[in-house]
């Protein structure tokens, strides 16, 4: 292999390691993590919002996805709310992204996906189901209203 080729390979590797380093930095230092395997949380049969600590604005949201809506459909939270979000499905695979946050989860029956999120800015955060789940999939949406 000639010199240019070796340089190209070294450069490509350096770039890839740099990118991967950034990913690890974001995960470990900035705590932007993807969901992991939860043990000890059983899939729930109904969705609801649980107030963990009103003063500290800590909430737990159990979000249940099913053909073709979310339960609860509309969630009201105060600005600054810190939320532990658990998501599961009652029937087929669904998914959601909460707009303008880093929350992006799949809802797979039998498993629970988890994300932690803070809502600092008041406003309406729309949720849409982003995994095909049957004929009315495009009607499956919800929202979080932060006030």
């Amino acid at each position, binding site marked *: *292999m*000639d010199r*240019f*080729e070796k340089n*190209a*390979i070294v450069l*490509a*590797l350096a*770039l*890839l*390691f740099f*990118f*991967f380093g950034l*990913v690890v930095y*974001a*995960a470990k230092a900035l705590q*932007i*993590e*993807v*969901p*992991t*395997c*939860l*043990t000890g949380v*059983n*899939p729930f049969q109904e969705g609801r919002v649980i107030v963990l600590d009103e003063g500290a604005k800590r909430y737990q949201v159990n979000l249940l996805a*099913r*053909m*073709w809506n979310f339960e609860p459909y509309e969630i009201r939270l105060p600005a600054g709310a810190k939320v532990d979000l658990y998501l599961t499905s009652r*029937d*087929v*695979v669904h*998914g959601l*992204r909460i*707009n303008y946050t*880093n*929350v*992006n*989860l*799949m809802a*797979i*029956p*039998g*498993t*629970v*996906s*988890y994300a932690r999120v803070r809502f600092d800015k008041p406003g309406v955060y*729309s949720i*849409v*189901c*982003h*995994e*095909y*789940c*049957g*004929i009315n*999939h*495009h*009607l499956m*949406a919800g929202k979080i209203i932060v006030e």
Partner: protein
Amino acid sequence: MSIRGGLRFILLSEIVFPFVLLILGVTLGLLQVLQRAGIIKSTSYLGIEYYQGLTLHGTINAIVFTTFIIVAFSNAMVMFSLKRSLKPGVQWVSWLLMVGGTLMAAYAMLTGKANVLYTFYPPLIAHWTFYVGVVLLVVGSLVPFFFDWIPNYIAWRRENPTGRFPLPVLGVFVTFILWFIIVIPVSIEILFQLLPLSLGWVEEINPLLARTLFWFFGHPLVYFWLLPAYIMLYSILPKLVGGKLYSDPAARLALLLFLVFSVPVGLHHQYTEGGLSAGWKLWHAFLTFMVALPSFITAFTVAASLEHGARQRGGKGLFAWWAKLPYFSREGDQWLFSYFIAGLLLFLFGGITGIVNASYNLNLAVHNTSWVVGHFHTTVGGLVTLAFLGISLYMMAKLRGVEVKAKGLAVAAPYLWLIGMMVFEVAMSVAAFYGFPRRTAAGASYIDPASPLYHPEWYFWAHLSAGGGAIAVLGFVAYLVSFLGTLFARPVREPVVEFPMAEALHDEPVPLLSNLRPWLTVSILLIAFSYTYPIYESMTKGITAKSPAYNDRLPVPLKQTQTEASAEIPR
């Protein structure tokens, strides 16, 4: 090499048959951009529902078309490189399995019995003919590798004990070894989970395990599409520009690195699901970055080969030589250049957006949004499709013994496609920053100003993507005119199997780079290491309950709808 009789029919039909389907597939693509933008308001058009059409679009374009063209190209390339004829018996078995399987799956999709999209995630379940059809297609595509190309290679080796493994044949072998490895997990998923569930032999299956097995197949699948295009870039493209392949060892190294790294990466499609440990997802992310390395090497080799060719044509300067490439040439075989260069330009964006997808936590910003759709229309819908369209037209003309007709249109087609797909890609990428989802008949809800679900911030981008899609379809129409003209032209010479083949500029033999065994061993060890725990986790800790089958119509398990009168179930 001349070719006639049954073999010629087989190779020709392996090109023409998927094309007939691709016309439907691309038409459905056009309907999708229109329906997503709300230009067509109804979710059902021409008797095809949106998600039924999307299943057809994904399956035909990404599974059927690709597999057929890859088999046809590999058949021709192995035959041409080893100078040995193929066995008609083997080819007929393969042909019957592939065509039969495709027709079965097409039946299920066209009758609306398989509205499950091309990823067929359970517990949504399709009619059994869909699954059996897919398996037959895949098995049929492997038959020539085991019963034709390997025996031919062994015979060739006996006659050429010191000859080097021909580069394109090495490429085809890497492609099909990879294909064979990944067909195993998806066959397990289909034969032990989906098919029994579909037939009612079992009540429930594990949907998480099914997903893990699917993506064990699903990501390497993209290299099954991509590698034949790379083989063309290495062995054909340099010749078209009148130059040489810059480096033969670098090309081999890239192919072999794909063999090592391209399989144990599937969890990068599962970053956002619970049930799998984040640590293993990060490991797969790392390997995904590693599998980008051979693509970087390829980018260098291809650019260097183009530069070498351009300098032979009088190109000068640091960058000025780019102007010397035959972008619009219609001379001889040079029209084919336009397909590769347009594909490569699209693939530049495909590579960059792909690294974003692979980036673990950054994936949270784009997973299942329109970003992903933009991404893979510049990869499989970009370089792969254009290379396959080009080579199909080329092979078809040779197999029929005719000149390519309407060459002007044939040269314009890839550039129209390039422009259209770029617009499409940009629109879909930007829309994704505002959360525009994929796999969604958005025109009937989110893009409809009259709907309570209206999202005004997606409106413009959805329309722009429709414009881009329409331009790309125009490119396809231009191609089709040339393709049909060539298909029905009167033969003027012997039918042949033939490719323009480039020599290498740097060509020192490196024995390790012609020997598949060590690389395959490392590959298998790496796969075993990377998948043992995730599969174990998918079967145990990750999941607490199995799921019964559903269809796309009703929010209750299928069994229940069959036992109770389905009319009584509220919708």
